[in-house]
């Protein structure tokens, strides 16, 4: 009843080395092909078992885990060492010795994603990309993006086959230039035009946002492939509008009422200084997409593909809103003293819009994820997601509590230490408290981030299916917290040089904790887009019309 171990499949002793495993795989595969050519083909199941063995014990990290599992299984007395080998030496296959394949055909097995990249390799690609981008004054960045995407796609394997990325650098460069142009128009209209004109420009440009989002989702999907079949995205511009515009309007309303309130405030908020940071922030947002993992693994962070800057920004915005609200409190305080008080009408409007925004942010995250998943397709197979809006609210509330908790702790720490030390004596004690509270604040922020990412990811993938096959995601909050905090610290300490390793570490974790649940061989059953569909969605069309936008 139990399956043969991968070692048995290859006819190797348990614990054989990686090189032996690979050699045995190749030999067995050659034999399989020979049989096929001589007209006595072996069943496909043999090939699948072979590929599974290669994926599992042909990779050092996986092999180590598999060996451990085997040892544990044997310790519990469940080892079935009597099952005959499938390939007992590549030349002597007895058809009778095979386990009945039909029994296993419907049995759902777990196909884990696998990431084979390493930090060192990616560092070499990254530094070369960086140098060429500098030398070409940024032009090479589109080619750099393709190299990077290809590295992350091709090193992501599912059931032994890699993903691939086909983005055309010229199309990406065009998209980047368009994005840059929009950015310049946006920031200069903010700087040079009075508020009403600027708002007007913003409102006029609003229909552009869903278009950009939809185009970039299409571009990304159509340029990703697995086993020679492309992904596709069927979401229409109209659906994109319906998904994005309510939130965008809500945000604009909030900003407007905040502006009306600020009009009568004493806070200096429009100095060249703040202008500079605005530019810096804008640039960060453009850059944010830099290393998105392959298409399926990219979905965890709803704000990361850059498709929905509104959604991603909403988290930052919440922090900003809090700061604004605090400013607002200060303003009220001073208003009570003597300054011209802000129009209460606007203040109420602002508070209401902030409330509305915070209330609907999880809902917005939910609907944008539904939008991107429910319109995603692999060849002819559609993705369907049954994500629940309640889960998004639960995650947002818990994740929001973490930074709040750490801020409260810091506040308590400060007030207690201020009382204990008293005025006049600072130095070492003060500095250590300062550092401690800094660490606490960062811990709070990272906890919130790690919780959101891991839980959203699990929710999204556990509730999504591809035709009749399900996914399973089991990221844990603690693991991700360690990874995120460690990556941040090491990147900071190495002045950014750790960055490639950090990216690889995260990509590996994501791959290790995502699996497709399908009967073995089911992944062979997908039909291509060209066979029955005459809408020729070829590479050329995608390249000619699509822009890859990272706003």
């Amino acid at each position, binding site marked *: 009843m139990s399956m043969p171990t991968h070692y048995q499949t290859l006819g190797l002793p348990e614990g054989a080395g990686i090189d032996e495993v690979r050699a045995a795989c190749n030999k067995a595969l050659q034999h399989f092909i020979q049989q096929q050519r001589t007209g006595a083909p072996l069943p496909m199941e043999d090939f699948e078992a072979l590929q599974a063995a290669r994926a599992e014990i042909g990779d050092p990290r996986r092999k180590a885990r598999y060996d451990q599992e085997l040892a544990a299984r044997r310790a519990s007395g469940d080892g079935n060492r009597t099952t005959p080998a499938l390939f007992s030496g590549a030349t002597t296959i007895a058809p009778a010795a095979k386990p009945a394949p039909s029994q296993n055909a419907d049995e759902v097995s777990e196909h884990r994603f696998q990431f084979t990249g390493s930090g060192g390799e990616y560092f070499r690609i990254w530094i*070369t990309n*960086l140098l060429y981008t500098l030398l070409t004054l940024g032009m090479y960045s589109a080619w750099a993006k393709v*190299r990077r995407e290809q590295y992350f796609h*091709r090193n992501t394997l599912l059931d032994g086959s890699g993903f691939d990325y086909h983005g055309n650098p010229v199309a990406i460069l065009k998209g980047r230039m368009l994005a840059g142009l929009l950015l310049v128009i946006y920031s200069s209209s903010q700087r040079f035009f009075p508020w009403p004109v600027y708002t007007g420009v913003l409102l006029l440009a609003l229909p552009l946002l869903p278009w950009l989002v939809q185009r970039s989702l299409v571009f990304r999907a159509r340029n990703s492939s697995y086993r020679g079949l492309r992904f596709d995205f069927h979401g229409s511009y109209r659906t994109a509008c319906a998904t994005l515009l309510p939130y965008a309007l809500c945000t604009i309303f909030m900003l407007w009422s905040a502006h009306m309130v600020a009009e009568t405030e004493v806070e200096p908020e429009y100095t060249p200084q703040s202008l500079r940071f605005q530019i810096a922030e804008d640039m960060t947002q453009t850059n*944010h997409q830099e290393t998105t993992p392959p298409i399926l693994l990219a979905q965890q962070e709803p704000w990361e593909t850059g498709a929905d800057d509104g959604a991603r920004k909403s988290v930052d915005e919440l922090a900003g809103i809090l700061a604004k609200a605090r400013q607002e409190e200060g303003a009220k305080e001073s208003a009570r003293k003597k300054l011209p008080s802000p129009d209460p009408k606007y203040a109420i409007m602002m508070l209401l819009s902030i409330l509305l925004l915070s209330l609907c942010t999880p809902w917005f995250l939910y609907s944008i994820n539904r939008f991107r998943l429910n319109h995603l397709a692999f060849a002819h197979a559609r993705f369907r997601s049954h994500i629940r809006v309640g889960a998004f609210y639960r995650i947002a509330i818990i994740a929001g509590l973490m930074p709040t908790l750490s801020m409260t702790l810091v506040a308590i720490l400060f007030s207690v230490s201020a009382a204990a030390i008293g005025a006049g004596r600072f130095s070492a004690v003060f500095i250590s408290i300062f550092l401690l509270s800094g660490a606490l604040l960062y811990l709070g922020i990272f906890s919130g981030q790690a919780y959101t990412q891991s839980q959203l990811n699990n929710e999204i993938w556990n509730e999504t299916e591809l035709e009749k096959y399900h996914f399973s995601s089991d990221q844990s909050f603690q693991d991700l917290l360690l990874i995120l905090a460690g990556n941040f610290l090491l990147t900071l300490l190495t002045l*950014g040089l750790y960055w490639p390793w950090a990216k690889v570490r995260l990509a590996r974790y994501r791959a290790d904790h995502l699996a497709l649940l399908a009967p073995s061989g089911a992944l062979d059953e997908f039909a291509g887009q*060209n066979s029955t569909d005459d809408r020729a969605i070829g590479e050329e069309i995608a390249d000619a019309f699509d822009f890859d936008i990272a706003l």
Partner: protein
Amino acid sequence: MSSSSPCVAVYFDGQSSRRHPVELAAEAGVLQVAGLAEIRRVPLAAIRVSEPQGRAPRTLRFGDGAYCEVEQGEALLDLLDALGYRESGVVRLQGRWRWSVMALAMVVMLLAAGYQWGLPWGAKQIAPRIPVSTMAQLSDGVLETLDKHMLSPSSLSPGRQQDLQRGFQRLAESDPELAAYGARLQLLFRRAKRVRGASGIGPNAFALPGGQVVLLDELVALKDISDDEILAVLAHELGHVRQRHGMQQLIQSSVAAAVTAAYLGDVSIAVSGLAALALESAYSRDMEREADAYAAATLLRLNANPEDLASALEKLEAFYAGKEKSAKEEEPGKYTGWLDSHPDTRERVMRIRRQHGGK
């Protein structure tokens, strides 16, 4: 079959996700794919070989959407060799650690050189090309905001204002280049606003890119400062206007902020913001020196004494030193020399005296 060890691969036809185990061989520059219904032969020219990407399988793509996925290894390398395939230059470089270290060194050098020379040079080229009207628009907006939030009307007597205004006109008229700024080239009198009890900006004067020079009452009221010294400070500010430092600064700091944000931005916006601030204030040192030199030249042209600028700087320095000292006692660690935008005043004073001490 000419190649020694056969190379096994998985073939995909581009129509379905089905895997076909195949064997690859090279024969006179033509790839043979065996294991399908019939042997497929593809010349090297029609194959797109993917770059090696670590341990990721490599792909050999044929024009019709079909491709082979091959494990990276000796068998494949032998096959590609037999086909006559050469890796691209970038790939050969990427594979070597020595190159990576070199690339890293070059990146660091390029960034340092770009920051040290390229950026100021570029900003200097661009700043004069920005129309005065644009700078005026920018300045008007900034001034409006400053007036709203940080400055209040001057309380100097009209007579005192007129005296200073006359001196300013003399300075301005001595340089025909400044005529381009038109009516915006003016001296404005303001007082620093006290924000919630804290003293505002303190004794200061500053220039906006559009030509407005703002003089704060606090500077005029500084202990022992003479009108000549005030005019020397104004000449220094005119130097900033004339050399378009404001615009240059804005360009430089925007680019520096953009680059640091692009590099560190993913780590933390706060960190990159701080880094940009530190980079940016280092720039203004050179500009201060340039403005000093301009002021000294202007003063000489008008038969005034550059020493006035030196002594004005010393008085300002003395004021801020006293303030800093008391501030340090209140809040240690808040002031650091690096973030100080008027650094090494003593050095500037000495430079002015060294160059114009004879006078």
